[in-house]
């Protein structure tokens, strides 16, 4: 009697435990799937981990925007990654019906689209329709950076991001603005205090942590998963661009403060020099970009950008930096073809390479090549008459985009460290006399070129 009882108790206990365990497993799985993407995966293709909610939401969204004639294009990196693998097939048969939901059904919290600001009129009607369709939406606005550089203009704030949420899926719509320098810019996503922090998992958004700069993409209308969408014509190059698209705004407020302390040189000479330096920089950027050589603003030009958002009128030259791994032998002929003859060449590709080109009227273009070491980078200098070598050390840096004299160019993201390494803690104070051999705070003596190499490493034209 007692035995049977005990067995029954045991069985009951095991059963309860089993049920409990199953419940927990289910819950755990549910939780995991929610964490990774869609909350529910029930209707279509639940076996293969597909999420038709997403597909439906995207379809609804595309319907919404096409009913308002708003041209958006897909920039979701995960989908574009998938699309890129099949790009040939998608291109060749753009209207083929797809047998399975391949792209828009992977369970995700959101899908990202881009919108060019100038292609729509900011009609309020869009949001009313969206609401009627059941979307909840959030608009993130902020100051217009195109007016940021200007004294005392207070424009209206501009929309930078929109988020449309339906059921468990959200559409992240990034607004791109055209800016001086022929590029597209999108803003950072920053929540104001009254905003709902839990509206979507903001941290997982692919766009918005930093502002970004992009080339204007060519678009392609494709049909994927039976949805007609525009995508960048070349998804892989878009994804590549995206990976280093971070944009730094010039520090306009600090620049204004600087000019309060040290009024700008408005003399005719200064105006003339700036004009020449600007066109030289434009020409250099065009030439290097055509060659596919990545460069950034260095030395005085970088300081001018960082300190005063302009060319320093007494700097007398334009300085660019290039990693030696990006060096191409075509650089010199390309510049010569562009009308910039080589003025001097110091060093060699293996060591301390530096090129100078002669621009219009004594304005010189210096290209310094940077060599990467484990914990620092450096570029070299050579004194022509003595063959002395110098080394300028910089902390390691990554490259960011910025806008400078109507040009989209790279600068070191860690600009302050870069400028401080070069100009010391007093970089904020303008210095008119500058000796490249002794003034920089990061200069090191680096020996002398062997005399038999002089012909090669010291070339002056």
């Amino acid at each position, binding site marked *: 009697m007692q035995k049977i009882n005990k067995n029954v108790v045991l069985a009951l206990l095991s059963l309860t435990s089993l049920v409990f365990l199953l419940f927990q497993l289910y819950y755990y799985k549910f939780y995991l799937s929610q964490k990774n993407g869609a909350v529910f995966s029930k209707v279509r293709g639940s076996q293969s981990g597909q999420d038709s909610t997403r597909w439906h939401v995207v379809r609804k969204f595309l319907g919404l925007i096409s009913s308002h004639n708003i041209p958006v294009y897909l920039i979701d990196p995960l989908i574009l990654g998938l699309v890129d693998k099949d790009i040939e097939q998608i291109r060749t048969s753009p209207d083929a019906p797809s047998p399975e939901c391949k792209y828009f059904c992977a369970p995700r919290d959101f899908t990202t689209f881009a919108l060019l600001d100038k292609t729509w009129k900011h009609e309020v009607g869009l949001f009313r329709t969206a609401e009627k369709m059941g979307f909840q939406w959030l608009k993130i606005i902020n100051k217009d950076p*195109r007016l940021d550089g200007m004294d*005392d*203009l207070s424009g209206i704030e501009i929309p930078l991001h929109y988020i449309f949420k339906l059921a468990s899926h959200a559409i992240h719509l990034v607004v791109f603005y055209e800016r001086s320098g022929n590029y597209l810019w999108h803003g950072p996503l*920053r929540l104001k205090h009254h905003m709902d922090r839990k509206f979507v998992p903001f941290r997982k958004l692919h766009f918005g942590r930093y502002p970004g700069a992009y080339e204007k993409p060519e678009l392609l209308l494709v049909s994927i998963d039976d949805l007609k969408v525009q995508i960048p014509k070349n998804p892989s190059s878009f994804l590549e661009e995206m990976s280093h698209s971070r944009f730094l705004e010039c520090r306009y407020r600090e620049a204004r403060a600087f000019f309060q302390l040290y009024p700008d040189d408005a003399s005719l000479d200064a105006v003339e020099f700036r004009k020449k330096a600007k066109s030289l920089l434009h020409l250099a950027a065009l030439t290097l970009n055509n060659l596919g050589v990545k460069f950034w603003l260095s030395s005085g030009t970088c300081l001018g950008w960082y300190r005063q958002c302009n060319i320093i009128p007494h700097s007398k030259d334009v300085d660019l930096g290039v990693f030696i791994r990006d060096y191409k032998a075509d650089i010199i002929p390309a510049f010569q073809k562009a009308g910039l003859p080589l003025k001097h060449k110091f060093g060699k590709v293996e060591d301390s390479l530096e090129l100078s080109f002669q621009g219009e009227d004594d304005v010189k273009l210096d290209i310094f090549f940077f060599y990467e070491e484990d914990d620092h980078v450096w570029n070299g200098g050579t004194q022509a008459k003595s063959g002395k070598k110098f080394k300028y050390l910089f902390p390691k840096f990554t490259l960011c985009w910025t806008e400078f004299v109507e040009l989209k160019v790279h600068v070191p993201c860690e600009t302050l460290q870069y400028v401080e390494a070069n100009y010391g803690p007093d970089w904020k104070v303008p210095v008119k006399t500058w000796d490249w051999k002794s003034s920089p705070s990061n200069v090191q003596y680096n020996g002398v070129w062997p005399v038999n190499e002089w012909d090669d490493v010291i070339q002056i034209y």
Partner: protein
Amino acid sequence: MDEWKPNPAVKPHKKRSWYLAWKYKLMNQRALRKLCQTGAVLFLLVTVIVNIKLILDTRRAAYEEEEESAQDYDDEMLNVEIPRHPVSNKKVLDVEVYSSRSKVYVAVDGTTVLEDEAREQGRGIHVIVLNQATGHVMAKRVFDTYSPHEDEAMVLFLNMVARGRILIFTIKDEGSFHLKDTAKNVLKSLGSQVAPFLSWRDTWTFVGKKGGEVYGEKHAKSPALSTWGDPVLLKTEVHLTSVEDAECHWPDTELNRRRKRFCSKVEGYGSVCSCKDPTPIEFNPDPLKDNKVFDVPVAVIAGNRPNYLYRMLRSLLSAQGVNPQMITVFIDGYYEEPMDVVELFGLSGIQHTPISIKNARVSQHYKASLTATFNLFPDAKFAVVLEEDLDISVDFFSFLSQSIHLLEEDESLYCISAWNDQGYEHTAEDPSLLYRVETMPGLGWVLQKTLYKDELEPKWPTPEKLWDWDMWMRMPEQRKGRECIIPDISRSYHFGIVGLNMNGYFHEAYFKKHKFNTVPNVQLKNVESLRKDAYETEIHRLLGEAEVLDHSKNPCEDSFVPDTEGKVYVMFIRMEQEADFTTWTQLAKCLHIWDLDVRGNHKGLWRLFRKKNHFLVVGVPASPYSSKKPSSVTPIYMEPPAKEEGAVAVPAVAAAEQT
């Protein structure tokens, strides 16, 4: 947790398992007991593990989420929201109105909404309009009814105010001298008992609702011609109505929502706010075929003259080929009402903190506006620059669309302007005709980006230089011999009477009779012949066919030009060197055209119309066209009057039009 392996041989640590184990110990069937024991323990252990993992995961995720929402995506700026005023549910407003010789003030619920004790200004009747539901000030005006015609303006204004609004009147100094019966009757119809008897230097205050009750009136008679009435202070209460009563019930559309916002804030714009058949705020003019200026940004330079801006934007948005998306209104100062007007039309507006004073302030505002325009539209090659006191011709964009390519292709061009300085009713005739002139007229013009970015912006006059931007642009250092293209009949009309360098008299003399094109879709006829060299050929052709007028007659007389139509005549005046405009100035004076400085010339040649004939004036011998003068003709010389009054006025007045 990870290293812990469920091992049946090991005795479980958990209390419950231990308890079970202890229970089964009492049983004798070892095998069964052991099996059950193992199974139970296994299950329980797995449960526990899963449980613990779940809890840990949940906690970590929750923590992460909290963290992510806290950092990173927060706006650095704190308290960006504007603190809201507490909404008062008060239904009654206390209104205080004061009238005296040297000071007036109006206070609503203890807040001073008008206070004027400045000397020698603010004379006349001050009018304030309050919203009957909210008590907000919707309009503030002063009509100097001591001077003529101001009472008419007041009547016009009062007629435009919607029924039900609360009107507050008070007189400063003198307000009756030119207050005619019409105006007095309007005031009477508002409920004033004193208005019909208002006389010299009386003080008077009145508060009433348009088309409704009177809340109070006070009046003090002036005892003698040389003295003023005693100051009067009126304290009264106004009962507010509900918001619904104060608003019109327009159909709920996007446009009407804008209208509603506008009409509940400001007054004095007439039918745009009438409840029945309000005037449209969207115009949808016909699009232009092959519009070359559709993507050209339009910068409207504005100050604080919202009524002007309203009129200007109406005409601009009615012009064929307008693209509202490209329009930006730049307001010099943080004025609310101009911004309200901009929003009414659904345009974008930008406010600019005033820098410097007077002319330099205008000049800095121009610079900021132009720079901002090219920043906002980075791929624009041109910008159209307009001012808030211009009417825009219906074919303004058509005119630009047909001519804008010249600006890009012909390097000898400085601008294209819609304004002909010499195009008056009696001197302009041909809407399809264009000229090249050495002066820059402004008043609706096109600026090329390269010119601005490469030349003008870097050396734009700094704030401490009190220069007029347009005078500066006309200086040879900037213009460098380049010319502007203008139409014979202007495509803009300057209606501004109030301005920095502007007054009623000046406007009447120089701007009122300016000809303004009202014909749509004019096909310009000589666009290609405006290129540098082609234009010379054209001029030589014209001079070749022109009939030389009788130089013995007085050129000021009407009979100087025969009573013909469609002919070309030429006259020669004396012009010793390039800068000798003595005779021209006299001629301009007697022809009643712009004579304050030299405008509209091209190499010593002026082109205008007289009696519907093309009329050319050549300055001899300075002009290269002097060779066309028959040797028998002596150039006409006109002597300036002994005391030249014009010279004094030039510097002040020349820039007036731009303001």
